[in-house]
């Protein structure tokens, strides 16, 4: 019999708040976490807005030396992992440390550190590059530092599937437990890439919103006037446990992770194809792996980036897969409030999806004033909806043609 996997702990830092509760409260209140960029001087940049983490005190989680040496994407992962383990009331004890693993995804790793150290290299020569530069830049060092901090000696990995990284990580962590190599996985996604290179690069691709005068209205998935995504930063970490392991220790169970689907577009390095059949296939696979049918799905936390192409093609993919049931589905994009946390998105949005199941509240798509052409699903516009649901999916898609989907089931 297939081993079952449940979620027992949540931890997050998002532009909406520095904990799961704060983030969730803001999300169901329909608040935006987007504002002017403060992380670097964006004077010369066309885009001047982002969803940044605000008022975060890293010293609550790491010491001064670690703040200096670790890139923020690692500090966020350590903080969210600590919160998630505390929430799960779980300490990785020596008796099962070899059965506890870590897979945390990140799209770009320590980009801010890279930029700073590269300046040192250019300005002062190679001797001035910090010995801590490389381990701050490597994307897998979020997983590495978390495993060291909490003593998890089981399987370790890092998903680097761009904007799907958090979801790929959770999917792979789920498979690791199903396969039998671990009973506990600390997993999710983290990103701290509101940097000059990222905003410059995405800006050159014309992927970013330039609605600088109205930051809180800039991320508007599925709306007629959407003009690109808003870059964000953040981290969402969840604790996965094999069902009997969780039951034996009397853990509180949030939801079951019942299925995962991953496919490739094999189409273009950055753009999805019209109709986005790869996205439809990844949703179909997650549903099949969970032993369900499309009609069983109640809610989709959409990728919904607020780019002209994604939102249209994701809508088309949902309609192609669900047929008549697409009309009954609720589909919302919390990126309307958080911005797009890149590799952090999959972790944070898994958490929003799990909270929606657990509390029976669907977070809204804000800034949806006039739906765009062919965007005709129930996007839960502007106001959260109280509705008991049993199954929910989280979609994320990434550059390189990655489509990754998680399927969660209500517990109890």
């Amino acid at each position, binding site marked *: 019999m297939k081993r079952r996997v449940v979620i027992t702990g949540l931890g997050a830092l998002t532009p909406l708040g520095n904990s799961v509760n704060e983030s969730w409260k803001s999300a169901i209140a329909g608040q935006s976490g987007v504002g002017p960029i403060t992380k670097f001087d964006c004077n010369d940049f066309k885009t001047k807005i982002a969803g940044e983490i605000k008022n975060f005190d890293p010293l609550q989680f790491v*010491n*001064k030396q670690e703040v200096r*040496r670790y890139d923020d994407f690692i500090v966020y992962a350590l903080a969210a992992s600590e919160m998630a383990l505390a929430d799960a009331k779980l300490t990785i004890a020596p008796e099962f440390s070899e059965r506890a693993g870590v897979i945390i995804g990140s799209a770009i790793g320590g980009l801010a550190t890279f930029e700073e150290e590269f300046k040192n290299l250019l300005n002062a020569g190679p001797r001035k590059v910090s010995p*801590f530069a490389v381990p701050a830049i490597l994307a897998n060092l979020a997983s590495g530092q978390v495993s060291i901090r909490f003593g998890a000696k089981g399987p370790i990995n890092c998903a680097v599937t761009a904007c799907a990284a958090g979801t790929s990580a959770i999917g792979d962590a789920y498979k690791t437990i199903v396969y039998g190599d671990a009973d506990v996985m600390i997993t999710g996604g983290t990103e701290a890439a509101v940097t000059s290179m990222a905003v410059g690069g995405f800006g050159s691709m014309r992927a970013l919103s330039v609605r600088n005068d109205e930051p809180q209205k800039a991320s508007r998935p599925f709306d007629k006037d959407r003009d690109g995504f808003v870059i964000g930063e953040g981290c969402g970490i969840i604790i996965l446990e094999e069902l009997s392991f969780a039951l034996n220790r009397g853990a509180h169970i949030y939801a079951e992770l019942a299925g995962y689907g991953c496919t490739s577009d094999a189409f273009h390095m950055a753009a999805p194809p019209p109709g986005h059949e790869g996205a439809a296939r990844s949703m179909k696979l997650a549903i099949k792996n969970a032993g369900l049918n499309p009609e069983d799905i109640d809610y989709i936390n959409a990728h919904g980036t607020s780019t002209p192409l994604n939102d249209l093609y994701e809508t088309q993919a949902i309609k192609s897969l669900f047929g008549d049931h697409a009309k009954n589905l609720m589909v919302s994009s919390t990126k309307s409030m958080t911005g797009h946390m890149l590799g952090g998105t999959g972790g944070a949005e898994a958490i929003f999806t799990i909270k929606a199941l657990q509390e029976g509240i669907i977070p809204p798509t804000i800034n949806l004033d006039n739906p765009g052409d062919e965007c005709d699903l129930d996007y839960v516009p502007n106001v959260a909806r109280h509705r008991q649901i049993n199954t929910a999916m989280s979609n994320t898609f990434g550059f390189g043609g990655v489509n990754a989907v998680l399927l969660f089931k209500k517990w109890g």
Partner: protein
Amino acid sequence: MTLEEKVIKIIVEQLDVTEEECVLEASFIDDLGADSLDIVELLMEMEEAFGIEIADEELEKIATVQDVVDFLKQKGVN
């Protein structure tokens, strides 16, 4: 501030240790919990603070707080 005091101040800041721990005889690795990367970073900070350069061969000889002070004096830093 004496040279010793300046050196100790930098070490306390860089290695996140207390002034009490940071006595002249203290070994970076055995007493102050540093590893080889910590020492490299620390000496880069000394280079910056005192405007000197420490060659790799010299770096290998530095094991205690006193070694740093002696090295700096030898370089003409007071």
